[in-house]
């Protein structure tokens, strides 16, 4: 038993010593292929814009809504995804073994979001930013570890700069960083909440929601000629069915339009492509179970994903009742996601397993501050933005403070 293990380790270490000669300095990404294009596609401003607005809708606005009176909310979220794309590279290092001189390298992606809001009575001012940082090039799993530590710092620093730098997309080979930020205000009129913000990528973000039925809608409107509405979402979220809601759960039905691709080369400008989806979710069935299905209308009609989940009671509730101590929560979700044939991404398509495990727990003795960690595989949200990220593993961490 020990001998095969030693042989395996020796072989692996010999491989590491060989590829160490294929240094990043002497390696060039090869433009033209689907992997290269997908690598660049992963790092785009529109994804950062969606990241900032979706993050605000998902995390910031509910926390602000629940914080009555005067208060401050701050949330930081980090998503790290591995193998989002594979980039073809060519090493000119003579010591690099021939079989690795013409090889693909993994592209790892770090997406970070920050949101802060200051609430006074029924009005609040908020700021939300998203950054995406990605790089390809590490030759071994062990050398990817420092990148996994550095990337969040780079993405975090970019968030700090986003307020003054605005919307940016900087590319160097297949390493790139994209940032976008939005600042605005919310008004809580009890029956309806209105939000408006200006995104640095020159877009007006409008959002509205109401609690009684659960209706909501939001859109990013670009006033520049021909830009239109790159992203929009509308429907009903977590609709209650009276006293039987504890048994049958709460229903969410909504539609969404997202930019699926962004043309990067102005010399080869093409038409924008959208991902239009319809979502149905029944959550909190028996206060513990969820089911959901997503249909896609464009670019192809069909079932996009289906899932089932089990979680702690109260997993979706956001409250700041200081008399009530928030317990720890968990969620385990599994399902299938169907990726259509997309030769334009170099993908033959197929049905894949998706899974998500999440846990959240209170930070310190505060009842309002909470941390969440999660592990995601083939997550439908990730694949919606990056359809080529099939079999990508990601982890997520978020910290929320309410003061």
């Amino acid at each position: 038993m020990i001998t095969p293990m030693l042989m395996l380790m020796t072989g692996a270490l010999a491989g590491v010593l060989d590829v160490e000669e294929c240094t990043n300095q002497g390696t060039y990404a090869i433009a033209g292929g689907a992997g290269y294009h997908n690598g660049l596609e992963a790092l785009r401003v529109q994804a950062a814009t969606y990241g900032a607005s979706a993050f605000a809708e998902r995390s910031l606005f509910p926390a602000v809504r629940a914080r009555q009176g005067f208060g401050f909310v701050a949330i930081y979220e980090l998503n790290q995804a591995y193998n989002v794309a594979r980039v073809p590279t060519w090493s000119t290092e003579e010591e690099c073994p021939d079989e690795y001189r013409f090889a693909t390298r993994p592209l790892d992606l770090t997406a970070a979001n920050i949101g802060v809001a200051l609430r006074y009575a029924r009005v609040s001012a908020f700021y939300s930013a998203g950054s995406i940082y990605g790089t390809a090039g590490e030759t071994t799993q062990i050398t990817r570890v420092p990148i996994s530590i550095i990337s969040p710092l780079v993405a975090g620093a970019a968030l700090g700069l986003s307020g003054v730098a605005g919307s940016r997309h900087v590319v160097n080979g297949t390493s790139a960083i994209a940032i976008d930020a939005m600042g605005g205000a919310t008004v809580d009129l009890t029956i309806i909440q209105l939000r408006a913000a200006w995104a640095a990528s020159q877009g007006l973000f409008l959002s509205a929601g109401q609690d009684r039925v659960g209706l909501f809608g939001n859109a990013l409107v670009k006033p520049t000629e021909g830009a239109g509405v790159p992203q929009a979402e509308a429907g009903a979220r977590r609709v209650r069915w009276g006293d039987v809601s504890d048994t049958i759960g709460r229903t969410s039905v909504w539609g969404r339009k997202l930019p699926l691709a962004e043309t990067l080369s102005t010399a080869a400008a093409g038409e924008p492509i959208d991902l239009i989806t319809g979502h149905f979710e029944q959550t909190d069935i028996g206060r513990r179970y969820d089911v959901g299905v997503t249909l896609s209308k464009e670019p192809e009609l069909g079932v996009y994903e289906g899932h089932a989940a089990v979680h702690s009671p109260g997993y979706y509730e956001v409250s700041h009742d200081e008399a009530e101590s928030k317990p720890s929560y968990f969620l385990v979700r599994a399902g299938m996601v169907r990726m259509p044939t997309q030769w334009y991404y170099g993908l033959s398509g197929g049905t894949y397993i998706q899974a998500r495990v999440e846990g959240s727990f209170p930070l310190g003795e505060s009842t309002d501050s909470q941390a969440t960690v999660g592990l995601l595989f083939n997550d439908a949200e990730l694949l919606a933005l990056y359809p080529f990220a099939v079999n990508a593993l990601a982890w997520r961490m978020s910290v929320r403070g309410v003061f």
Partner: protein
Amino acid sequence: MILLVFAACVTLRPIEADVPCREAGYAISRRTFECTGDGALANRRYEAFARQYTCISPAIEYDTGYYANTPADLYHCAFAIGELACSLVTTYGDDLDRWLDSSPMCALVAAPP
């Protein structure tokens, strides 16, 4: 022990010799998709390419570094196709020969019927 072995794993994956040819097909599909937004048409064009052309696997000159038949040269076919203006995409339509005239390197990676 398993973690140690995993940590030592190489992340590089050698590219198979016929990949620059398939990339040319992907580029036709991608440019069609970008310019028309028609995913079905884009997929049909790749499938027509795969059906009508035979992939050639040219020997790669590892010693030359910057000269002929390096992988970057072989990818020029896909690169040139990916840079076509949308007006040309419309003009070329389903005539794949015209798409593959975009770069002289296309003749090195894909043989016509």
